[in-house]
Each structure stands twice: as C-alpha cells, then as structure tokens.
C-alpha cells in the first residue's frame, strides 16, 4: 500500500546507473541501503531501507504507528486491527488471530485446490493464458468471498472497490482522494446491508460470527465490524494476487528453478518462503513517527511519515547471507514479507496456503510454462503486482 518514489534526484545517488524498472526493484533497494538508508521523498515520505532499521520500526509499533496519520485510504475511522495502536490492538487480534491460524485455514485447503483446478481447466486447452486475469485475480478474490460468506456474483463489485481504493485511475491528487472517499462510503454501505441481513437471518459464516463475537465481555459494535471488513477487503485481495503473479512470473523466467519444483514438489513450501523474500510483493508499509526518534544516526521527527521498506530488508546481506541467491532450501529464512511485530499480517497463513496450493496445481498440470515468446510481463509500482503476465505452455494431448 505504499508508493515508491523516484530516487534518482537525490544528490548522493549516482545517476544513470540504474532505471526505475518496477520489474527489478532489488537493484534500487541495494542502492538505497548503500547510499541513502534513510531517504526523504515527497510522495513516499521517509524511506527506511536497512534490515536493522526495518526490524526496529516493525517491533516498535508504539513509536512507528500504522494509525490513520500514517495512511488514509478512503476510510473515515481506523481500520481494525491495523490502525489501532497498542494496547487496544491486542483485544482485536485475540478475536481475529484464531480465525486465521494455520489450523483453521487448513480447513480451506481442499476448496482452494478445487478452485485452482477449475481456473486451470478454463485455459489449459488453449496452451496459453494471461495469468493475472485467468488465475491470480480470481483465486484469492473467490476464496475471500467464500470465507466471508458473500455471494460470488459480487466478485466484479469487489474488484472495483479494491481497484478504486488501491489504484484510482487518475493522476490528479484531489480526484484521487475523491474516488477513494466515495468508494470508501460504498464499501461501508455494502457491508452494512449484508450485516443487516445476517442479523435477521444468521448463517454459518464469518460475518455472522462477528455479530456474535465476544471481546472482553462486550459485543463488537457495528462500526467495529465494518472497520474489520474494510481492512479485509483491501488487505486480502490484492496482496495474494500480486504474490502469486510475482512467483509465477519469476519461475516462468527461471526454467531451472521451475523444473526443480516440477521434479520435487516437496520444495514448493520452501520456494513460497524464498520467493516471498526475494519478490516481497508488498514492498513497503506506511508508518508515522509518534515521537522524535533516532534511526541509523539520523533524527526522525514526531509526525514524520515513513515507508518501511520490507523488500529492501529482505535482501540485506546483514539479515540474509548471499541475499541475491534465490535458494528454495535456504536454511535460515527470517524474511519480513508479512511485516513483523504486533501488526504481522493477519492473513499470512491463508496467503501461504493459497500460494502453496496454487504452485502445486500449476506445476502438476502445466509444468513447462514460460513467458509467451515475443511478450514480457508488466509489473506495477506500489504493491508489486504483475498485471500483465502472458504465459505459454504445452496443452494436454
């Protein structure tokens, strides 16, 4: 949810040695850590790039806050739990963590596998597909709708909601915020209506569960539930789409690595972790300093907006030996692709399940996929999605 700002105008930075190619952010991160580990930019606030500083910021959520001063994305109240500061934060995590714990998300595995296969069925005979629209978008979005107990017909509506919030189609800043605010109201209204329905007719789904939930002896308020749903919608759809796209794009361009997974699917879980590290589909997370603090020998002032560059920390040699080797059997992988500290991504275990199952089914059914000859994948800035990913493969005979 953070935006990368061009870095070529800073005086410390040697110019002309790299371009801002969203397909290869790693070179930019290396440059930042080397020359400007704390970089003040206009659009992205203050970028912090070193592993040590990123870890520090993540672990000190009371100083590096993710509340509404850090980012506003069309919401009128703090998103729950992300924009709630400690100590109140934990009461919401106590309720939500069990719903997304590995044991709980494992119950979805068969469903995710079936859905992955259905999506592959739709394109496999053609021997080619545009992977983003054929698989990367529908997989997590469908899983999300089912999880919350929402009708699958609403898929396009949801895609519109998230795109209008995450990447409004305008370059005008006022218009950008207007689209976000307007869409925000539509999101609140949508969930408000569904919650009315669940109150009248409870179902066995997560939304009904929220209406009946107990938090420290109290019910969640209607606003609490809306603030949870809003965050789910924004955090749960785009990120997994981006992750599966980044991984398949990498593997399509590295046939040896792809073949490794075809020959030995037991390496897929390790590949998911290593590609989360190398690709870091959510490259940075926004924070705001709540007090003056020193980082990397520089003073950060209270109120300063910060982008914590997870992607840079994940390829810092001080955290990862031989960081440029993409090694599916890396013995120690403490990557921060899901953030860290108290705001560790709530959906990380669901994301891991979806990514693993997706890679298992793809490598079983279209093992020789590659980038379609004459074409190339297109990456987006901000959340690192591959919004155009043309693949070719041998169709079944």
């Amino acid at each position, binding site marked *: 949810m953070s935006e990368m700002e061009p870095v070529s105008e800073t005086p410390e930075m040697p110019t002309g040695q790299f371009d801002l190619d969203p397909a290869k952010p790693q070179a930019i991160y290396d440059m930042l850590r080397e020359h400007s580990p704390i970089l003040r930019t206009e659009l992205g606030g203050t970028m912090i790039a070193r592993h040590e500083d990123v870890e520090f910021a993540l*672990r000190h959520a009371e100083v590096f806050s993710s509340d509404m001063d850090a980012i506003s994305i069309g919401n009128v109240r703090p998103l729950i739990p992300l924009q709630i500061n400690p100590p109140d934060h934990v009461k919401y*995590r*106590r309720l939500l*963590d*069990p719903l*997304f*714990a*590995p*044991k709980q998300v494992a119950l979805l595995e068969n469903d995710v596998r079936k859905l992955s296969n259905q999506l592959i069925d739709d394109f496999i005979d053609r021997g080619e597909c545009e992977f983003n629209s054929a698989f990367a978008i529908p997989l997590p979005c469908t899983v999300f709708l089912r999880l919350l107990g929402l009708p699958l017909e609403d898929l396009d509506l949801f895609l519109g909601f998230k795109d209008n919030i995450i990447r409004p189609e305008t370059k005008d800043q006022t218009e950008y915020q207007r689209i976000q605010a307007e869409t925000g109201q539509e999101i609140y209204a949508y969930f408000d209506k569904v919650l009315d329905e669940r109150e009248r007719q409870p179902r066995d789904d997560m939304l009904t569960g929220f209406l009946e939930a107990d938090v420290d002896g109290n019910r969640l308020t209607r606003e609490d539930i809306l603030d949870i749903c809003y965050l789910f919608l924004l955090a749960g759809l785009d990120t997994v789409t981006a992750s599966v796209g980044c991984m398949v794009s990498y593997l399509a361009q590295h046939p040896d690595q792809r073949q490794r997974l075809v020959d030995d699917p037991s390496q897929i*879980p390790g590949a998911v972790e290593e590609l989360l590290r190398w690709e870091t589909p959510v490259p940075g997370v926004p924070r705001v300093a709540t007090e003056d603090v020193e980082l990397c020998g520089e003073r950060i002032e209270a109120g300063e907006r910060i982008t914590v560059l997870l992607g840079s920390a994940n390829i810092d040699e001080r955290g990862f030996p031989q960081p440029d080797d993409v090694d599916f059997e890396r*013995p*120690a*992988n*403490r*990557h*921060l692709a*899901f953030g*860290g*500290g*108290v705001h*560790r991504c709530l959906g*990380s*275990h669901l994301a891991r399940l979806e990514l693993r199952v997706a890679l298992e089914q793809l490598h079983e059914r279209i093992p020789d996929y590659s980038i379609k000859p004459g074409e190339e994948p297109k990456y987006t800035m901000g959340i690192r999605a591959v919004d155009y990913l043309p693949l070719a493969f041998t169709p079944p005979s």
Partner: protein
Amino acid sequence: MKVRVDTDLCVGHGRCYVLADDVFEADDRGHCLIPNEDVPPDLEEKARVGEQNCPEHAISIEE
C-alpha cells in the same frame, strides 16, 4: 539442549511449528508453545531450524 520462546516477542508467524512440529506447537491464536523445553538429541536439529526461521528472534537455544 534447552529451547525457549519469549512470548512477548512471538507474534504468530508460525514458522517454528510448521517447520519443526516435533518441538514446537501452536496455541489457539497460532502463537508458539513449547511443550517440552528439554530437547532430546534426535530433535536438536529440528529445534535449530525453528530458531533460525523465527522472524522475531523469539526463540532461543541453550546448549
């Protein structure tokens, strides 16, 4: 060998019990539990894997 988890640091990444479920377990929230801090010799390697993959450095090993 002894293995311990600092429950103030653990935030439920879940790497330890996914990679080494003979040594680490999960509570309802998905945070780490260590039923037996004394690690038998045949599980020492597993305990190290859990320790080395904790993004929060919440697990410590005493040899």
